[in-house]
């Protein structure tokens, strides 16, 4: 094998080993809570990749993405909890949830097709809120969602008799619930990454890029913008629904409060800060924005240790820093912290038109 390929393989193997061992390292170094947080980070990676398809690839500004997350979670709760008394296995429910989310993606996307960027944002935001309000209130006359009390005692993921919510000892190593969920989430996240990569590099992906860059030109070139936009919504929603189902099984409890506007904005910020349209960037953004706020909680302990009392509440600090980070990144690195090469060029457009065109040609010839 040529050495470049050998190095790529070595990189792969290292990555695989690293990912496999990660929960144990984290547990040892930081404690079980952080393993749980890593699990949440994986969920958010899935969500961010889903939104990335809608916003990053197709350029459709969706501020109501959390609605699909909510749908996936509620479908799981309906089919695997004492609420309706139905207890289907997870491998049946998760695809159903994803499918329902996809259907809603098309449903919610259809009226927005003619809307310009900012109007689209407001309408999708409205949809997100509508779904949340329905979830919060559909407990009378028919109790569908149990209203603000949420649905509790949701079944965890189960493989036959083995419940992932209980620890198991395998060959001398203790696998706690967060460990076990980690592996399930990891496999599914890798699947989502794979699908994203294939989509990006396909006719569909290129059609999305064309629509994003200049919709009229794309339509003039014969691209069915309507169907491709709907496809973008549907695919994004599918990943959201999948993540939602996993979330319900993981936390064992869901309520409409977890699916509010701030969540949608958070996920949007993950992909914007990380690097929109660029898979490594999106993953980075999702991981950092999930873990960093938790890390900031520790400043409370630090303050107590150093100053004897808390001067600034870490929770207050967290949101303030988040806002500052958003503004700073947008001002200095608008393409995101780990942008794709093309985006960086686009947004730092300093060269003349000829240079840009040459660079774009080089892109497509990749």
């Amino acid at each position, binding site marked *: 094998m040529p050495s470049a390929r050998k190095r790529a393989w070595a990189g792969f193997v290292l990555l695989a080993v690293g990912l496999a061992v990660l929960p144990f390292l984290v547990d040892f170094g930081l404690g079980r809570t952080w393993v749980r947080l890593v699990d949440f980070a994986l969920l958010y990676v899935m969500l961010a990749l889903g939104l990335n398809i809608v*916003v990053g690839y197709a350029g459709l*500004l969706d501020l109501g993405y959390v609605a699909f997350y909510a749908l996936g979670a509620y479908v799981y709760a309906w089919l695997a909890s004492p609420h309706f008394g139905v207890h289907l296995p997870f491998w049946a429910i998760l695809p159903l949830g994803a499918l329902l989310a996809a259907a809603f993606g098309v449903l919610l996307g259809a*009226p927005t097709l*003619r*809307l*310009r*960027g*900012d*109007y689209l*944002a*407001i*309408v999708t*935001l*409205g*949809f997100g*809120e*509508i779904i949340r*309000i*329905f979830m*919060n*209130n559909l407990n009378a*006359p028919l109790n569908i969602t149990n209203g603000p009390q949420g649905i509790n005692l949701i079944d965890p993921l189960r493989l036959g008799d083995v419940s992932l919510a209980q620890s198991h000892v395998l060959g001398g190593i203790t696998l706690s619930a967060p460990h076990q969920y980690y592996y399930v989430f990891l496999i599914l996240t890798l699947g989502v990454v794979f699908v994203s990569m294939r989509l990006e590099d396909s006719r569909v992906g290129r059609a999305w890029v064309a629509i994003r860059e200049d*919709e*009229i030109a794309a339509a003039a070139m014969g691209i069915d913008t309507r169907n491709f936009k709907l496809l973008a919504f549907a695919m994004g929603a599918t990943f959201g629904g999948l993540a939602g189902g996993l979330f319900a099984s993981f936390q064992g409890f869901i309520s409409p409060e977890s699916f509010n*506007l701030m969540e949608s*904005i958070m996920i*949007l*910020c993950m992909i*914007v800060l990380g690097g*929109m349209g660029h898979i490594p960037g999106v993953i980075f953004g999702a991981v950092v924005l999930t873990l960093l706020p938790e890390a900031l909680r520790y400043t409370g302990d630090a303050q107590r240790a150093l100053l004897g009392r808390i001067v*600034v509440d870490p929770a*207050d600090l967290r*949101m*303030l820093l*988040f*806002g*500052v*980070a*958003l*503004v700073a990144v*947008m*001002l200095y690195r*608008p393409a995101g912290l780990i942008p794709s090469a093309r985006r960086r060029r*686009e*947004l730092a457009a300093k060269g003349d038109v000829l240079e840009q065109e040459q660079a774009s040609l080089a892109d497509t010839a990749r």
Partner: protein
Amino acid sequence: MDVFLQQLVNGLVLGSVYALVALGYTMVYGILELINFAHGEITMMGAMVALAVIGALALAAPALPGVVIVGAGLALAIPVCMALGLLIERVAYRPLRNAPRLAPLITAIGVSIILQNVAMLIWGKQYIPFPAILPQGRHDVLGASITDVQLAILLLAVVIMAGLTLLVGKTRLGRAMRATAQSRQVASLMGVDVDRVIAATFVIGSALAAIAGVMVSAYYGLAHYYMGFLLGLKAFSAAVLGGIGNLAGAMLGGLLLGVIEALGAGYIGDLTGGFLGSHYQDVFAFFVLILVLVFRPSGLLGERLAERA
């Protein structure tokens, strides 16, 4: 019948509140095509700053007429908000003027979060009461009641809209604003100092926000660091409903949204036989917005703009 009338009055007052905030939104959007998410927070800042003054004065000099005290509060709040608006424009929006649409939007969200948290750090997380110093008279009109403060809000919204229309239609600055809104490059070619015009727009918008903030907190009797968020969202929806970039549209959108919300909350239970109720109040408003945009993508009074190439 008087229930309906009362709901209508409720809706119009609520709508005027939305309109006051929406006017600021629409002005900025008209020129910059930027959803200034931070506008709601500037409204909140105006309310908080004014309330700090009002609260202190009400304690120290209770003999002063309420209107004077509120006036003093406004006298501080308006310049503070203007300065804030100027600062935000200079630091956060100006560098991104030529960036793709998403960047200033995200920045606006970031600024909004910063302002919320700064307010929280300064004034705490408590709700701050608005002292009952304004005239509390109630008038009964054809079976519906309306208070002095409510009347004031209605009138204010109309006056401000009239004033803004005059400004934009008849003054030099207004002409420059309209030119910049149509095409920034051509306007600057024609000798308009685009930067100054944009800054002026922000300043005026922020002053409006301060007034709106004070009126809102006077009406509901309290102010809170989080009050700007939902208000800003609804106001922006109102502006979009009416046709963004259009002053009359903001007014119309605001009033319409308020009336829909009030009538919706009041009657939706009866209309759907108890299946839906007033808890779907917000849904109703959004639903109407979506409906309008599907059939008239540029809003009720918006011009049918050709897609910009």
